[in-house]
């Protein structure tokens, strides 16, 4: 399942997509600690699978919460994407 957390508004689409089929297989979950803004949490989804999700309080402001990792120039790889070994995390912007 591709879970899209975020929103779209007048300035664009801001979604963090987590492919839970890839996430389930990961025992590491190092993305949770890698995010400097602590956006990620481990939850039990509707199908009793333990997966990573974006915390509710961050879902309406991911553009701003992720801002520090996305400077306009010299953009380094995102810590969450780097840390996610199965490649389950993508950002839409």
């Amino acid at each position, binding site marked *: *399942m*591709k*879970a*899209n*957390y975020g*929103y*779209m*508004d*007048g*300035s664009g*689409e801001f*979604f963090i997509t987590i492919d839970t089929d890839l996430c389930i297989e990961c025992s590491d979950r190092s993305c949770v600690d890698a995010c400097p803004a602590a956006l990620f949490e481990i939850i039990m*989804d*509707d*199908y009793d699978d333990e997966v990573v999700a974006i915390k509710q309080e961050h*879902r*309406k402001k991911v553009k701003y919460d992720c801002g520090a990792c996305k400077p306009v120039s010299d953009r380094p790889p995102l810590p969450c994407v780097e840390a996610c070994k199965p490649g389950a995390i993508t950002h*839409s912007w």
Partner: protein
Amino acid sequence: MVTAGIDMGAKNIKVVILEDGVVKSRAMATTGFEPAASASKCLEQAAQESGIEITAIDHITSTGAGRKTAPNVNSDITDVGADAKGIVHLMDDVRTVIDVGAEEGRGIKIEADGKVIDFAVNEKCAAGAGAFAEAMSRALEVSLEEFGQISLKSDKTIPMNAQCAVFAESEVVSLVHAKTPKHDIAKAVHDAIASRIVSMVRRVGINEKIALVGGVSHNPGFLDALKRALETEVVVPENPDYIGALGAAIVAGERTK
């Protein structure tokens, strides 16, 4: 086996009681300032209508934006999961659900068994939710029911350039001042909401058949705009406001087994 689903929506709370998989009763109440108390009253009302004592309900599952605040429930499920279960129970050939509520829009791609494949939720943009249509109907001084109906009379396409509900309201006011007929403005508003919803749904991909659920599915103007934006047929199930509550009640049954 008797189960109940409580959908704690942003504007309304919906309850469905099932007995052996058959709907015995439904009830709806305004969420208000005391969602837990409203949910209890709504459950009592549904129980009264079904003739079933609340104590005889084997399992209650909550869903919706306020699912964690629902009183005396045994479990909860996300609104996405509940919508998927509910729609497949009624229409087993639906593969994409579009749920537009008062303050949220959701696009959900599902499997034949009601399992979610992909989903996207927009909890932030009012311009893609029912509250916007309600506010615009007030600006045009027509009831929400009338607002939906009159837009069907329009054959004009007036683009609304504002991407935000607040600025879109300014555009509506400008159109009013320009003596634009109400039905043309109503159509422009519905087209704007549909365009935002479709853009979100395209994120998850669209598999036919498509169903529209949630309170906004009662609005014929929005349904028409959605069909035009998707360029395909969109079905609306019976009692579209109760799909989340129905799905929660079905999940309650699965969790009791």
